[in-house]
């Protein structure tokens, strides 16, 4: 039974304390001690996610849709293991590669090649495994002439291309994609989608967050609709996207 599941969320909630009173620094805390303590007592948690449960089967592609602040990105961060749930349990099976922000962890002083190694290791490969893939990564990014130039000389499009190339060559079991495809040009987006199709055929589990219902219905097996931190519905893409559009019109 377990072999079948790649991601499992059970009663997951995430609360934040907004406006941490100490965020202003020690000086502010000491100078305004009475009011600060009061604020600390009175602060109310913000419920980013409330009691969310769903399973993602191995090889399945599930898209998360919903308005801004509905809890999609929080869900993704929880699956990525960057955040820890306040309640409930998140279980993942396999190596996860987050495409939460392309090129997170890139250093702009280093060359493209050096950044491939740095990013690859940060995302979970050993140096040897990264080196075995470097040629393919450069090939896919089409940055041959610039690969030994510092990243600060790159255009933003080039950085995105490099980030995507690194991420898709790590052979993840689970791929998390957070609206990154919005940034590239049409040709780059096409290439990204081809790559995602390729991952799908290979049986990589994917979680995809997007506002673009067209690409959502094109790529996903199931769609999860979020609103105000709750999972409203999960199921067949056509039905959920309809429900989403109805809600958007109603609001």
């Amino acid at each position: 039974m377990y072999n079948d599941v790649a991601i499992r969320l059970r009663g997951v909630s995430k609360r934040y304390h907004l406006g941490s009173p100490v965020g202003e620094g020690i000086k502010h805390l000491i100078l305004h001690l009475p009011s600060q303590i009061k604020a600390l007592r009175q602060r109310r948690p913000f419920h980013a996610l409330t009691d969310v449960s769903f399973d993602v089967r191995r090889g399945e592609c599930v898209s998360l849709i919903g308005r801004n602040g509905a809890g999609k990105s929080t869900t993704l961060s929880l699956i990525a293991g960057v955040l820890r749930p306040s309640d409930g349990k998140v279980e993942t099976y396999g190596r996860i590669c987050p495409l939460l922000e392309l090129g997170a962890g890139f250093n702009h002083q280093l060359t493209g090649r050096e950044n491939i190694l740095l990013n690859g290791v940060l995302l979970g490969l050993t140096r040897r495994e990264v080196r075995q893939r470097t040629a393919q990564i450069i090939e896919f990014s089409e940055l041959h002439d610039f690969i030994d130039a510092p990243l600060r000389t790159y255009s933003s499009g080039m950085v995105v291309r490099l980030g995507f190339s690194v991420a898709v060559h790590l052979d993840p079991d689970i791929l998390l994609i957070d609206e990154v495809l919005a940034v590239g040009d049409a040709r780059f987006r096409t290439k990204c989608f081809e790559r995602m199709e390729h991952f799908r055929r290979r049986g990589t589990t994917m979680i995809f967050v997007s506002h673009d219902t067209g690409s959502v219905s094109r790529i996903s097996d199931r769609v999860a609709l979020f609103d105000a931190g709750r999972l409203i519905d999960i199921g067949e893409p056509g039905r959920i996207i309809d429900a989403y559009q109805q809600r958007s019109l109603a609001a």
Partner: protein
Amino acid sequence: MAILSTFAATQTRSRALVYYRDLVLVLLAKEFKVRYKNTFMGYAWSVLHPLVLALIFSLFFSVFVRLQVPDYTLYLMAGLFPWQWVSNTCFGANGYFLSNASLIKKVRFQRWMLVLSGVLNEAIHFVCSLPVVIGFMLYYSKSPEWNWLWAVPLLLGIQIVMMTGVGLFIGTCNLFFRDLERLVSLLVQLLFYLTPIVYTADMIPPGYTWLLYANPFAALIVCWQDLFYAGTLTPAFVATAAAWSAAWALMGGCVYACKVWRFAEIV
């Protein structure tokens, strides 16, 4: 995605070890390249700072104030080089997590590796400055003793553990109190003058010697001075330095472990 539990499930233990080694190495390489990429002076800069300080202090204290310390310049170097490591770590620690915000928000990996690689980077700089110390020793017709073979690695180990603890502590606290930086720079200044660097430990009047043990960095600096200046080690100071090292590691480790899960929320 260096999730420990993920590795436990799908990877062997030996691969995890290789992976952690590689993670430290690439972070270390990054620090090094970034530090030297735009400076052709490179190594010279890290030696120049304590060297200039040593010259100023020796002019001031041995020529103007006429402090009676034999080979005073060598004595200064023996304290200033390890102190430079301490102060660089204290200042650098403010940014170990803060300057890697995008990484912490988006990617799961062992965050304390950022601190460890920063500390190891300073350790390498310190080791690279040893030839300068040896140069001054030879100038004053002294030479390294055989005991360096075990004493240098011992003190290095104590200082690496201590600095990692300090780095974790300051790095974590600075995420929650963003003006900690100013307080740290004040404390580092204060501790510099409370540590026998420009003066010697036996100049301290009997009533104040407890400061040597209460100051978290003094015993360690005295150990390095003993080694470079006199070629010996005082067991009491080595023990004190080791105790402070363990205390920092424990304190830094606890603060880090308690708060590491909130890093991505507040950074």
